[in-house]
């Protein structure tokens, strides 16, 4: 259980304090897939960094299974919005980074890395340095790197934002399949309403700054979900409802 309780965050900019996040409370059950949609600049990245233990909230608490999170660690894996691959490591070594840090057995590392290379379609690029990959490929490596590390909670900050629509669909389907198989707790940030509805059990719509939760939608569609769902009328209507709230 991941509990976000009464989180606020103020940033200081030119000696002026501004409130980016205002009193957000959000319980996330184990194995729940939640999506957060909100306008650009509303504080989604800020909230995820607080969840990951990278930023300190101005007030409020994050509890993971009853314990307060005060520092980052492997339990809370974060796929960053920007490119954060280690440029001096090749694709293979990037994915193995977290595993090697924990001194896992080499056979296990090899097995895990190869598995995620395959599922993300990067098998042929294992030896490439990040600078020689396209933006979308880099993002896939970043996702593989976090997944391979097997975090308890998967935090994703607009992970598919840099991908073309085809790869994006593939990655979405890949993620639902993965979730249906492994049932991880996922907090998925996006500004694409369709993506949020397709992937999540619950969609939280955030308001512009200072961010508050505007509305929560429980997504009614059963799993397993495939892309055929996106073409149904029910999906269309539901997404519109969410989008309406989002755009208001």
């Amino acid at each position, binding site marked *: 259980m991941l509990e976000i309780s009464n989180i606020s965050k103020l940033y200081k900019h030119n000696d002026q304090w501004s409130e980016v996040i205002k009193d957000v409370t959000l319980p996330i059950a184990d194995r729940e897939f939640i999506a957060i949609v909100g306008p650009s600049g509303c504080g989604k990245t800020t909230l995820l960094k607080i969840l990951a*233990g990278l930023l300190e909230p101005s007030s409020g608490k994050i509890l993971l299974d009853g314990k307060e999170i005060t520092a*980052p660690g*492997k339990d809370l894996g974060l796929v960053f919005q920007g490119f*954060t691959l280690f440029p001096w490591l090749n694709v293979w070594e990037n994915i193995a980074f977290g595993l090697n*840090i*924990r001194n896992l057995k080499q056979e296990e590392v090899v097995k895990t890395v190869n598995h995620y290379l395959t599922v993300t379609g990067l098998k042929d690029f294992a030896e490439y340095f990040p600078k020689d990959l396209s933006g979308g490929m880099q993002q896939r490596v970043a996702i593989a*790197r*976090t997944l391979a590390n097997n975090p308890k909670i998967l935090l994703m900050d607009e992970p598919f934002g840099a991908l073309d629509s085809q790869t994006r669909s593939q990655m979405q389907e890949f993620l639902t399949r993965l979730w249906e198989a492994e049932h991880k707790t996922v907090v998925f940030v996006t500004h694409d309403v369709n993506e949020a509805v397709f992937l999540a059990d619950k969609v939280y719509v955030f308001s512009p700054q200072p961010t508050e939760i505007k509305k929560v939608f429980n997504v009614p569609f059963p799993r397993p979900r495939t892309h055929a769902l996106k073409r149904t009328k029910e999906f269309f209507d539901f997404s519109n409802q969410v989008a309406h709230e989002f755009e208001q």
Partner: protein
Amino acid sequence: MKLERKISRNKYILFGSAGLLVFLSVWSLLTYTGLVPAFFLPPPSKVLSAIADLLIKGNLLGDIFASSSRIFFGFLLSLVVALPIGIALGISRKFEAFIEPIIAFIRYIPPSAFIPLAIIWFGIGELEKVTILFMGIAPYLTLLIADVVINSRRDLVEAALTLGADHQSVILKVILPNCFPGIWDSLRIMMGAAWTFVIIAEIVGASAGLGHLMIESQRFLRTDNIFGGIVVIGFLGLTTDYFFKVTYKSLFKWTEKSNA
């Protein structure tokens, strides 16, 4: 950032030789025409024959070896000290507050100011030369390395932390590899300075070395030998610089700069 596209290797060599040719022509024009007396500025041929003479009859190789080995040891000692202090400066605010004023102070003292002291402490042997080199290189190198570390990418550190890295792994597996190319560049810059310091050190109380060669030549009014020495130093500097450039490319293939 270069504003033009890559130029071919041949073109590069062409432009390089053109620059050199212009330089040589001006030099020849000034000297062979007698515009400047040979005593002040010897012509290129005279400088070349001076170098040849020094090689055969003199002790040029010995001098080169003496200066190079002083640089090597002075540099090595500086690196051993500057690397850990520079990294610590770059990652710890407390350490920075503690040590920064001292280094900033030492940095503004010209290394030549240490020569009298170094001679009193260590005599005029190798230890004195290496000390002067160390005093000249280490403070600068420390601050250069600290700067590289301070400017290393924060997002990569954050990524490592969320992958479960502790502080030690962040330093060893993220900050260090990320900073190596910058540190290599700092070494390259300081190598240039090292040549300055070694000549200064050898001008005062040395029995071998290129600085010693120059001050001896001055004593005997051998301008051609002085210029010979300058040319040799220039070439040695060029060689070390080239060494750093080539090793950069092969060591840091992952950087954008490596295929520039």
